[in-house]
């Protein structure tokens, strides 16, 4: 079996209106892989019911290395300081990589 790789899972929760801006921000950091999930909820700014389309949130999942994570978190910090309502959650995860590096294959043996 291919060995697991240590990665970070970055989860961003934001109003759906900010989705394009956040994706552009990730792309500037050369992160092209992400998963989007529309979602609803409530918080200090009120109910995000999703009933109007615009009043919904989005979950953006990004699997990322620790080095690249820091740069993205700096970007998120800048956005938050500007007043944008974004939540960033970071978790340690292990993934089964699609591509096996030579080093990884050796370890597996």
């Amino acid at each position, binding site marked *: 079996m291919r060995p697991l790789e240590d990665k970070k899972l970055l989860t961003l929760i934001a109003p759906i209106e900010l989705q394009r*801006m956040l994706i552009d921000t990730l792309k500037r950091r050369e992160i092209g892989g992400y998963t989007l999930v529309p979602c609803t909820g409530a918080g200090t*700014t009120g*109910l995000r019911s999703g009933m109007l*389309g615009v009043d919904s949130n989005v979950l953006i999942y990004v699997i990322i290395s620790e080095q690249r994570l820091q740069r993205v978190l700096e970007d998120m910090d*800048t956005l938050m300081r*500007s*007043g*944008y309502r974004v939540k960033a959650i970071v978790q340690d995860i292990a993934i089964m990589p699609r591509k096996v590096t030579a080093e990884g294959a050796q370890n597996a043996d």
Partner: protein
Amino acid sequence: MLEAAGRNLLDPVILFFVLGVLAGLIRSNLEMPQPIAKFLSLYLLVAIGLKGGTTLAVEGLSASGAMAVLAALIMAVSVPIITYGVLKRLVDPFNAAAVAGTYGSVSAVTFIAAQQFLDKNGIPFGGYMTVAMVLMETPAIILAVTLVTLLRAKQAVAPVSLSAAAADQPSVIPALSIGRVVYEALTYGGHVLLVGSLVIGFVAGAPGQDAIRPLFSDLFKGILAFFLLDMGLLVGRQFGDAEFRLEYVLTAFALIAPPLYGSLALLLARVFALAQGDAVLLAALSASASYIVVPAILRYAVPEARPGIYFTMALGLTFPFNIIAGIPLYHAISELLWR
């Protein structure tokens, strides 16, 4: 006058709205599937655009119609300026600018409800009022963003200048010029659909309308009832579930501003010698606030403002006020002025 107001309250469309509000307040698990809710809003935009375009094709744009459109533009500029002038003394100026943008723009559903009210009372109105509504959507958002840009310059807040970035790395925050904001407003899906339907209705004219009448005319009221049930649910839940609570001054503004702006619009319509039906529609538009397009743009164009304020005011207070009490009130005032 009271009879018309009573008829409005007993209209099944309004009663479905009230049912939705009650269901939301008591936290009923009544749900409208999201794709259906989205379809209903798209349907209404197409129906209103087609109706306005067809009427415009049949009647043409008269001098009175041109005056109505001019009056609409005057109100679209005046309402945000007055709103900002009043609120900047009472709340944070960024919130004041955002509320000004929200109240300067319009609610298409309030416009539809006002049309239904006029139809029911046998008061004619021009198809050009749909053009007026379309034109009223954008000036306020431009004014709001201009105000915010001036506020930022005054306060010299670096992060939200939208251009501040370290020289060696690209800015995280996209450049948001007035032109970009206008582009976002004009290319917003609902706006494109409304304008497109208006043009299609105008080009196809009356023969084209006949072909699609079963869907967009005969079923209209039933589908509007369904949509308002959903809107009522949203309004009720906004109050029932949200942690956010509005300040009293903003609550008062959200309920006092609509009759004031509606009255101002009626006076302007009287000066411009508009027909009574057009005047009531102008009043309903001026008294309404945008809870879809403008809040969506403000979310990223004015991050300093609190969405809970401008969204809750527009949707939770001003919208139900206009649907239940405002429209009959504007009609009653128009009866006095046009008698």
